[in-house]
């Protein structure tokens, strides 16, 4: 709104960027939600030029994973998108299983779907909550964090950790489900629905919020595809691209859900796509948890999946396998795969090259954040600083995933 008024007022151009004010938005700015450095050139409140600098959180995961075994890489993927760590774990485990050609039991696939969607909900909760905080509405953030705390306690019961979960192994789950898993998941959905309703009342039709978000930092569908956008940010531009529908993995084809799309690709569309996606995730979790099949918690692949500890002490074959897996690792055949999953932020891809050894010869993480974050130089240009803050939080770039 205000932008158009200022655009009209400023007619002169700036030869050689003289008389402009330099401002570093970041790297340790509370509103960037991560360690991003945006070097802006300002004229008053208007941003004339932005140069993005990243790399402050680079931990060389791709180099490290060339020296880890296939199961050790799971711990690395936790630390990529730390807001929804289990989604990354599942993505990597699926990649390794594709390389090895393992078909996991239906129970494992359903549990992975449930966990994946729970992670999508908590990721979107944080993103939309923080979008509200940056727009000046702190209340919704606290509503959402209560839900997040409940689910972290469930993760604690399930895998023994809250944030760095290390969930799943190549070939199945790391341990059997705890007895009340199904009940806990279904009981969690009721407060989610209630809080979503309250959040809609607080923000969705809020006049101030709409004025701040509508038509700000919009991007067209063609441009977004050229940049390599994916996930909610791409769907907000009107492209119906969802890997859960287009390339179903882990039994996503069994569930009935809709894919929301926006029209203009502005901040409000991104917000709404995320809100509706959460409602659809609740639907998927409900279907999966109610129809949870019985069965073993891992595939029958003794040379890949560790045997039970009591068998290792009493059974000769189990002890040999345990020794082989620990000492030699899993050795997939030579080849290369690309497996992509619909992570909360977008298409999280794993490109893995195997030379037949126990470590990946090359492992590349296709992080969704890197591809849409490079567009900030275009999105922030000619906008206001206040809009820049909202743009950065609505894109939901996570530093750990961006820089790996």
């Amino acid at each position, binding site marked *: 709104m205000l932008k158009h008024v200022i655009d009209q007022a400023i007619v002169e151009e700036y030869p050689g960027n003289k008389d402009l004010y330099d401002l570093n938005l970041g790297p340790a700015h509370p509103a960037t939600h991560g360690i991003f450095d945006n070097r802006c050139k300002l004229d008053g409140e208007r941003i004339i030029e932005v140069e993005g600098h990243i790399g402050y959180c680079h931990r060389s995961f791709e180099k490290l994973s060339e020296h880890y075994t296939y199961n050790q890489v799971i711990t690395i993927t936790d630390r990529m998108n730390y807001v929804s760590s289990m989604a990354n774990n599942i993505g990597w485990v699926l990649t390794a299983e594709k390389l090895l050609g393992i078909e996991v039991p239906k129970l494992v696939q359903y549990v992975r779907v449930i966990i994946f969607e729970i992670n999508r909900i908590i990721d979107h909760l944080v993103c939309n909550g923080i979008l509200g905080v940056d727009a000046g509405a702190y209340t919704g953030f606290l509503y959402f964090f209560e839900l997040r705390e409940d689910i972290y306690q469930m993760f604690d019961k399930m895998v023994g950790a809250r944030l760095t979960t290390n969930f799943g192994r190549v070939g199945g789950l790391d341990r059997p489900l705890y007895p009340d898993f199904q009940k806990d998941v279904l009981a969690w959905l009721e407060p989610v629905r209630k809080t979503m309703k309250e959040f809609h009342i607080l923000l969705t039709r809020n006049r101030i919020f709409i004025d701040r978000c509508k038509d700000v930092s919009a991007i067209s569908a063609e441009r977004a*595809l050229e940049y390599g956008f994916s996930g909610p940010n791409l769907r907000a531009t009107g492209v119906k*691209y969802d890997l859960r529908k287009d390339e179903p993995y882990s039994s996503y084809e069994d569930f009935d859900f809709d894919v929301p799309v926006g029209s203009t690709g502005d901040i409000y569309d991104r917000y709404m796509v995320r809100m509706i996606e959460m409602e659809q995730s609740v639907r998927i979790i409900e279907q999966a948890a109610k129809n949870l099949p019985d069965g073993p918690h891992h595939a029958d692949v003794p040379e890949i999946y560790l045997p039970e500890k009591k068998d290792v002490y009493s059974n000769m074959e189990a002890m040999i396998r345990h020794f082989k897996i620990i000492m030699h690792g899993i050795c997939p055949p030579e080849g290369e795969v690309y497996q992509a999953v619909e992570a909360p932020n977008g298409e999280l891809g794993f490109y893995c090259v195997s030379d037949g050894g126990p470590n990946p010869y090359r492992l590349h993480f296709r992080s969704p954040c890197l*591809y849409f974050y490079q567009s900030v130089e275009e999105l922030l240009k000619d906008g206001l600083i206040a809009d820049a803050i909202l743009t950065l939080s609505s894109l939901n770039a996570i530093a750990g995933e961006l820089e790996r």
Partner: protein
Amino acid sequence: MSNVELKTKLLEDIKAQFGDKILSAKINYDMPQVEIDPEIHGEIHKWLKDHPEWQFNHFTDITGVDYLGKRDDSERFEVIVHLHSLSKNIRVRTKTRTGGENPEVQSLINVYIGSTWTEREVYDMYGIKFTDHPRMTRLLNPDDFEGHPLRKDFPVKGLHRGSFPKGVVINNKRREPQVTRQTRPKPADQMLPRTPVEQQRAPLREDGGDA
């Protein structure tokens, strides 16, 4: 048309267009994959994007692999591009070999704007220069970083013992830190005695101080 037929047709279309510039074409683990001559690296991606039937308009991924010791030094690197077609819902992978003293590949920045930062990452990690890229600088590592970390001959521990050298970088020039009473390294005789294993090691820093 089934999925496998579609992928086979895509590979045949590419072979018919570019002929002997395509070194190999096959379906590798459900992904159509073509190895191409470095000359047509820019051309083939533009053709794939603008083709009225295939429309590979979704830029998915660009990365590199180092095959040091497995291949000849003149073609040790591979630049790998993944593209996705929304209308047909299939993917394609292209591979371009490069190597030698100054590895170079054509930039895709005029075809896909999404290669602005990602090609810089490949340059940062492998030292492969992308010609016609307007800002071929490092992306993740600092500007004065030595070497290219994802090359197979780069050690995991890094080239230097301890952490990065002390000092601050302003305008790409390293300013040496001011030596004050607090930061001056202690003389060797005032330092705590090291364990026998530590004594065998070289000092962590050139000035004798600890990291």
